[in-house]
Protein backbone atom coordinates (compact mmCIF):
# COMPACT_ATOMS: atom_id res chain seq x y z
CA UNK A 1 0.00 0.00 0.00
CA UNK A 2 1.34 3.41 -0.88
CA UNK A 3 2.36 5.73 1.93
CA UNK A 4 -0.13 8.39 0.92
CA UNK A 5 -2.92 5.80 1.14
CA UNK A 6 -1.85 4.95 4.67
CA UNK A 7 -1.85 8.64 5.53
CA UNK A 8 -5.43 9.00 4.29
CA UNK A 9 -6.40 5.95 6.35
CA UNK A 10 -4.90 7.79 9.33
CA UNK A 11 -7.09 10.80 8.55
CA UNK A 12 -10.15 8.56 8.23
CA UNK A 13 -9.41 6.99 11.62
CA UNK A 14 -8.99 10.42 13.16
CA UNK A 15 -12.34 11.49 11.71
CA UNK A 16 -14.07 8.50 13.33
CA UNK A 17 -12.36 9.33 16.62
CA UNK A 18 -13.07 13.07 16.39
CA UNK A 19 -16.06 12.94 18.80
CA UNK A 20 -13.44 12.41 21.51
CA UNK A 21 -13.00 16.15 21.06
CA UNK A 22 -16.47 16.77 22.46
CA UNK A 23 -16.87 13.73 24.72
CA UNK A 24 -13.68 14.23 26.73
CA UNK A 25 -14.39 17.87 27.60
CA UNK A 26 -17.93 16.90 28.60
CA UNK A 27 -16.69 14.04 30.81
CA UNK A 28 -14.11 16.18 32.53
CA UNK A 29 -16.47 19.13 32.84
CA UNK A 30 -14.01 21.35 31.03
CA UNK A 31 -15.18 24.83 30.20
CA UNK A 32 -14.82 26.72 26.93
CA UNK A 33 -11.28 27.24 25.68
CA UNK A 34 -9.56 30.37 27.03
CA UNK A 35 -10.39 33.32 24.86
CA UNK A 36 -13.17 31.52 22.98
CA UNK A 37 -16.03 32.51 25.28
CA UNK A 38 -19.24 33.76 23.74
CA UNK A 39 -20.64 37.16 24.82
CA UNK A 40 -22.92 35.61 27.47
CA UNK A 41 -20.14 33.54 29.03
CA UNK A 42 -17.91 36.60 29.06
CA UNK A 43 -20.60 38.68 30.76
CA UNK A 44 -20.70 36.09 33.53
CA UNK A 45 -16.94 36.05 34.10
CA UNK A 46 -16.00 39.66 33.35
CA UNK A 47 -19.26 41.21 34.50
CA UNK A 48 -19.95 43.00 31.23
CA UNK A 49 -19.77 42.48 27.47
CA UNK A 50 -17.13 44.67 25.83
CA UNK A 51 -19.00 46.75 23.27
CA UNK A 52 -16.70 46.08 20.33
CA UNK A 53 -16.80 42.37 21.02
CA UNK A 54 -20.58 42.39 21.26
CA UNK A 55 -20.85 43.98 17.82
CA UNK A 56 -18.23 41.85 16.07
CA UNK A 57 -19.20 38.52 17.58
CA UNK A 58 -22.33 38.38 15.45
CA UNK A 59 -20.50 39.46 12.29
CA UNK A 60 -20.59 36.06 10.65
CA UNK A 61 -23.19 33.33 10.85
CA UNK A 62 -21.52 30.07 9.97
CA UNK A 63 -23.68 27.37 8.34
CA UNK A 64 -22.62 24.79 10.95
CA UNK A 65 -21.54 26.70 14.03
CA UNK A 66 -19.29 24.74 16.36
CA UNK A 67 -19.45 21.71 14.12
CA UNK A 68 -23.07 20.80 14.89
CA UNK A 69 -26.19 21.21 12.76
CA UNK A 70 -28.20 24.32 13.52
CA UNK A 71 -30.86 23.46 16.08
CA UNK A 72 -28.92 20.48 17.34
CA UNK A 73 -26.99 22.41 20.01
CA UNK A 74 -28.93 20.95 22.90
CA UNK A 75 -29.01 17.37 21.72
CA UNK A 76 -27.27 14.57 23.59
CA UNK A 77 -23.70 13.39 23.06
CA UNK A 78 -24.56 10.57 20.61
CA UNK A 79 -26.33 13.01 18.27
CA UNK A 80 -23.64 15.63 18.70
CA UNK A 81 -20.98 13.03 17.97
CA UNK A 82 -22.73 12.10 14.76
CA UNK A 83 -22.93 15.75 13.73
CA UNK A 84 -19.28 16.19 14.68
CA UNK A 85 -18.21 13.38 12.34
CA UNK A 86 -20.37 14.73 9.53
CA UNK A 87 -18.76 18.14 10.09
CA UNK A 88 -15.31 16.62 10.01
CA UNK A 89 -16.06 14.89 6.70
CA UNK A 90 -17.66 18.00 5.20
CA UNK A 91 -14.88 20.27 6.44
CA UNK A 92 -12.13 17.98 5.21
CA UNK A 93 -13.92 17.57 1.90
CA UNK A 94 -14.10 21.32 1.32
CA UNK A 95 -10.51 21.75 2.52
CA UNK A 96 -9.23 19.10 0.13
CA UNK A 97 -11.12 20.63 -2.80
CA UNK A 98 -9.68 24.07 -2.08
CA UNK A 99 -6.15 22.71 -1.70
CA UNK A 100 -6.39 20.69 -4.90
CA UNK A 101 -7.64 23.81 -6.65
CA UNK A 102 -4.72 25.82 -5.30
CA UNK A 103 -2.33 22.95 -6.07
CA UNK A 104 -3.47 22.73 -9.68
CA UNK A 105 -3.03 26.44 -9.99
CA UNK A 106 0.46 26.44 -8.49
CA UNK A 107 2.01 23.08 -9.28
CA UNK A 108 4.09 22.38 -12.33
CA UNK A 109 2.46 20.81 -15.37
CA UNK A 110 2.95 17.05 -14.98
CA UNK A 111 6.20 16.59 -13.14
Amino acid at each position, binding site marked *: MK*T*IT*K*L*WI*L*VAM*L*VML*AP*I*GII*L*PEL*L*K*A*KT*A*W*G*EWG*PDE*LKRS*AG*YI*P*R*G*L*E*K*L*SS*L*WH*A*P*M*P*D*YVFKGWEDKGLPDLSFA*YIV*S*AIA*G*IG*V*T*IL*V*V*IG*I*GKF*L*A*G*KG*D
Partner: protein
Amino acid sequence: MHIPDGYLSPQTGGLFYIVMLPVWAAAAKIVKKTLAARQVPYLAFGAAFVFVIMMFNVPMPGGTTGHAVGGTLVAILVGPWAAAIAITVALAVQAFLFGDGGITALGANSFNMAFVLPFVGYYSYKLISFKSAKDSVRRASAGAIGAFLGITAAALLAGIEFGIQPLLYRSDNGRPLYCPYGLEIAIPAMLFEHLILFSWVEAVATFLVIRYLQREDPL
Protein backbone atom coordinates in the same frame (compact mmCIF):
# COMPACT_ATOMS: atom_id res chain seq x y z
CA MET B 1 -6.57 28.46 19.91
CA HIS B 2 -8.83 30.01 17.34
CA ILE B 3 -9.34 33.66 18.20
CA PRO B 4 -13.04 34.46 17.62
CA ASP B 5 -14.52 37.62 16.15
CA GLY B 6 -14.67 40.42 18.70
CA TYR B 7 -11.60 39.65 20.75
CA LEU B 8 -9.30 41.60 18.49
CA SER B 9 -10.06 45.11 17.30
CA PRO B 10 -10.70 45.53 13.57
CA GLN B 11 -7.41 47.41 13.46
CA THR B 12 -5.54 44.45 14.94
CA GLY B 13 -7.39 42.04 12.69
CA GLY B 14 -6.67 44.17 9.66
CA LEU B 15 -3.02 44.52 10.61
CA PHE B 16 -2.51 40.78 10.65
CA TYR B 17 -4.25 40.36 7.30
CA ILE B 18 -1.83 42.93 5.92
CA VAL B 19 1.11 41.14 7.56
CA MET B 20 -0.03 37.81 6.10
CA LEU B 21 -0.47 39.08 2.54
CA PRO B 22 3.25 38.99 1.69
CA VAL B 23 3.57 35.66 3.53
CA TRP B 24 0.79 34.12 1.45
CA ALA B 25 2.19 35.68 -1.71
CA ALA B 26 5.68 34.37 -0.99
CA ALA B 27 4.26 30.94 -0.17
CA ALA B 28 2.37 30.86 -3.47
CA LYS B 29 5.47 31.88 -5.39
CA ILE B 30 7.80 29.42 -3.66
CA VAL B 31 5.34 26.53 -3.78
CA LYS B 32 4.70 27.21 -7.45
CA LYS B 33 8.40 26.80 -8.11
CA THR B 34 9.02 23.79 -5.92
CA LEU B 35 5.79 21.81 -5.77
CA ALA B 36 5.53 18.95 -8.21
CA ALA B 37 2.05 17.86 -9.25
CA ARG B 38 2.57 14.51 -7.53
CA GLN B 39 3.05 16.28 -4.19
CA VAL B 40 -0.38 17.91 -4.23
CA PRO B 41 -1.96 14.89 -2.49
CA TYR B 42 0.51 15.40 0.38
CA LEU B 43 -0.51 19.04 0.56
CA ALA B 44 -4.17 18.01 0.63
CA PHE B 45 -3.37 15.42 3.30
CA GLY B 46 -1.57 18.08 5.35
CA ALA B 47 -4.57 20.41 5.27
CA ALA B 48 -6.99 17.58 6.08
CA PHE B 49 -4.73 16.33 8.86
CA VAL B 50 -4.46 19.68 10.64
CA PHE B 51 -8.19 20.23 10.16
CA VAL B 52 -9.13 17.02 11.95
CA ILE B 53 -6.40 17.33 14.58
CA MET B 54 -7.79 20.72 15.57
CA MET B 55 -11.17 19.09 16.25
CA PHE B 56 -9.68 17.08 19.11
CA ASN B 57 -10.40 19.35 22.02
CA VAL B 58 -8.23 18.29 24.90
CA PRO B 59 -9.59 19.21 28.30
CA MET B 60 -7.63 20.29 31.29
CA PRO B 61 -9.57 18.76 34.18
CA GLY B 62 -11.90 21.42 35.56
CA GLY B 63 -10.19 23.87 33.31
CA THR B 64 -10.43 24.96 29.73
CA THR B 65 -9.85 23.06 26.51
CA GLY B 66 -7.26 23.38 23.78
CA HIS B 67 -6.07 21.53 20.77
CA ALA B 68 -2.98 20.48 18.88
CA VAL B 69 -2.42 21.66 15.33
CA GLY B 70 -0.01 19.26 13.63
CA GLY B 71 1.48 22.13 11.66
CA THR B 72 5.11 21.24 12.25
CA LEU B 73 4.51 17.71 10.98
CA VAL B 74 3.00 19.08 7.80
CA ALA B 75 5.94 21.44 7.40
CA ILE B 76 8.34 18.52 7.73
CA LEU B 77 6.39 16.66 5.04
CA VAL B 78 5.86 19.40 2.44
CA GLY B 79 8.05 22.27 3.61
CA PRO B 80 7.07 25.28 5.70
CA TRP B 81 5.74 27.40 2.84
CA ALA B 82 3.39 24.71 1.56
CA ALA B 83 2.38 24.04 5.17
CA ALA B 84 1.50 27.72 5.54
CA ILE B 85 -0.91 27.38 2.62
CA ALA B 86 -2.37 24.08 3.84
CA ILE B 87 -2.96 25.33 7.38
CA THR B 88 -4.43 28.64 6.17
CA VAL B 89 -6.96 26.74 4.06
CA ALA B 90 -7.95 24.57 7.03
CA LEU B 91 -8.31 27.66 9.24
CA ALA B 92 -10.37 29.48 6.61
CA VAL B 93 -12.76 26.54 6.21
CA GLN B 94 -13.06 26.31 9.99
CA ALA B 95 -13.85 30.00 10.27
CA PHE B 96 -16.31 30.34 7.39
CA LEU B 97 -18.13 27.01 7.62
CA PHE B 98 -18.04 26.31 11.33
CA GLY B 99 -17.46 29.63 13.06
CA ASP B 100 -14.31 28.19 14.64
CA GLY B 101 -12.15 31.29 14.70
CA GLY B 102 -13.34 34.70 13.62
CA ILE B 103 -13.39 36.08 10.11
CA THR B 104 -11.79 39.32 11.29
CA ALA B 105 -9.28 37.23 13.25
CA LEU B 106 -8.35 34.92 10.37
CA GLY B 107 -5.24 36.95 9.59
CA ALA B 108 -4.06 36.72 13.18
CA ASN B 109 -4.95 33.04 13.52
CA SER B 110 -3.11 32.37 10.27
CA PHE B 111 -0.11 34.35 11.48
CA ASN B 112 0.02 32.29 14.69
CA MET B 113 -0.84 28.82 13.43
CA ALA B 114 -0.10 28.87 9.70
CA PHE B 115 3.09 30.93 9.74
CA VAL B 116 4.89 31.16 13.08
CA LEU B 117 3.98 27.63 14.16
CA PRO B 118 5.21 25.71 11.10
CA PHE B 119 8.27 27.92 10.59
CA VAL B 120 9.47 27.78 14.18
CA GLY B 121 8.71 24.07 14.19
CA TYR B 122 10.36 23.29 10.89
CA TYR B 123 13.58 25.22 11.44
CA SER B 124 13.95 23.91 14.98
CA TYR B 125 13.51 20.44 13.54
CA LYS B 126 16.13 21.07 10.87
CA LEU B 127 18.58 22.35 13.44
CA ILE B 128 18.12 19.54 15.95
CA SER B 129 17.95 16.73 13.39
CA PHE B 130 21.05 17.94 11.56
CA LYS B 131 23.03 15.01 10.15
CA SER B 132 20.86 12.45 11.92
CA ALA B 133 19.81 9.31 10.07
CA LYS B 134 16.50 9.52 8.25
CA ASP B 135 14.95 6.75 10.32
CA SER B 136 16.50 7.70 13.65
CA VAL B 137 14.72 8.37 16.91
CA ARG B 138 16.70 11.59 17.06
CA ARG B 139 15.04 12.82 13.89
CA ALA B 140 11.59 12.00 15.22
CA SER B 141 12.47 13.66 18.51
CA ALA B 142 13.65 16.71 16.62
CA GLY B 143 10.24 16.86 15.00
CA ALA B 144 8.57 16.55 18.39
CA ILE B 145 10.70 19.30 19.92
CA GLY B 146 10.12 21.51 16.89
CA ALA B 147 6.39 20.91 17.17
CA PHE B 148 6.49 21.75 20.88
CA LEU B 149 8.32 25.00 20.22
CA GLY B 150 6.14 25.92 17.26
CA ILE B 151 2.82 25.56 19.04
CA THR B 152 4.12 27.24 22.18
CA ALA B 153 5.32 30.20 20.14
CA ALA B 154 1.91 30.43 18.49
CA ALA B 155 0.21 30.31 21.89
CA LEU B 156 2.45 33.07 23.23
CA LEU B 157 1.60 35.26 20.26
CA ALA B 158 -2.10 34.66 20.75
CA GLY B 159 -1.69 35.68 24.38
CA ILE B 160 0.02 38.90 23.30
CA GLU B 161 -2.61 39.64 20.67
CA PHE B 162 -5.37 39.17 23.24
CA GLY B 163 -3.56 40.99 26.03
CA ILE B 164 -2.72 44.22 24.26
CA GLN B 165 -6.35 44.86 23.35
CA PRO B 166 -7.41 46.45 26.66
CA LEU B 167 -4.22 48.49 26.58
CA LEU B 168 -5.00 50.01 23.21
CA TYR B 169 -8.74 49.94 22.76
CA ARG B 170 -11.04 51.34 25.39
CA SER B 171 -14.39 53.06 25.10
CA ASP B 172 -15.16 56.52 26.52
CA ASN B 173 -16.17 55.03 29.84
CA GLY B 174 -12.79 53.35 30.17
CA ARG B 175 -14.00 49.81 29.53
CA PRO B 176 -12.10 47.57 27.11
CA LEU B 177 -13.82 47.36 23.73
CA TYR B 178 -12.52 43.93 22.76
CA CYS B 179 -10.67 41.31 24.79
CA PRO B 180 -11.06 42.51 28.36
CA TYR B 181 -8.09 40.60 29.76
CA GLY B 182 -4.68 42.24 29.71
CA LEU B 183 -1.22 40.84 29.05
CA GLU B 184 -0.75 39.89 32.68
CA ILE B 185 -3.69 37.49 32.38
CA ALA B 186 -3.65 36.46 28.74
CA ILE B 187 0.01 35.52 28.38
CA PRO B 188 0.20 33.30 31.48
CA ALA B 189 -3.13 31.70 30.56
CA MET B 190 -2.02 30.81 27.05
CA LEU B 191 1.50 29.76 28.00
CA PHE B 192 0.49 27.74 31.05
CA GLU B 193 -2.13 25.63 29.24
CA HIS B 194 0.17 24.89 26.36
CA LEU B 195 3.33 24.24 28.37
CA ILE B 196 1.42 21.96 30.73
CA LEU B 197 -0.59 20.02 28.20
CA PHE B 198 -1.36 21.06 24.64
CA SER B 199 2.24 21.51 23.47
CA TRP B 200 2.97 18.02 24.78
CA VAL B 201 0.05 16.57 22.86
CA GLU B 202 1.38 18.28 19.75
CA ALA B 203 4.88 16.93 20.37
CA VAL B 204 3.79 13.35 21.06
CA ALA B 205 1.43 13.24 18.08
CA THR B 206 4.20 14.58 15.84
CA PHE B 207 6.69 12.03 17.18
CA LEU B 208 4.32 9.12 16.63
CA VAL B 209 3.42 10.04 13.07
CA ILE B 210 7.07 10.61 12.15
CA ARG B 211 8.04 7.21 13.60
CA TYR B 212 5.21 5.63 11.63
CA LEU B 213 6.37 7.29 8.42
CA GLN B 214 9.99 6.36 9.08
CA ARG B 215 9.00 2.70 9.12
CA GLU B 216 6.93 3.02 5.97
CA ASP B 217 8.89 5.40 3.84
CA PRO B 218 12.08 7.29 4.56
CA LEU B 219 11.28 10.97 4.99
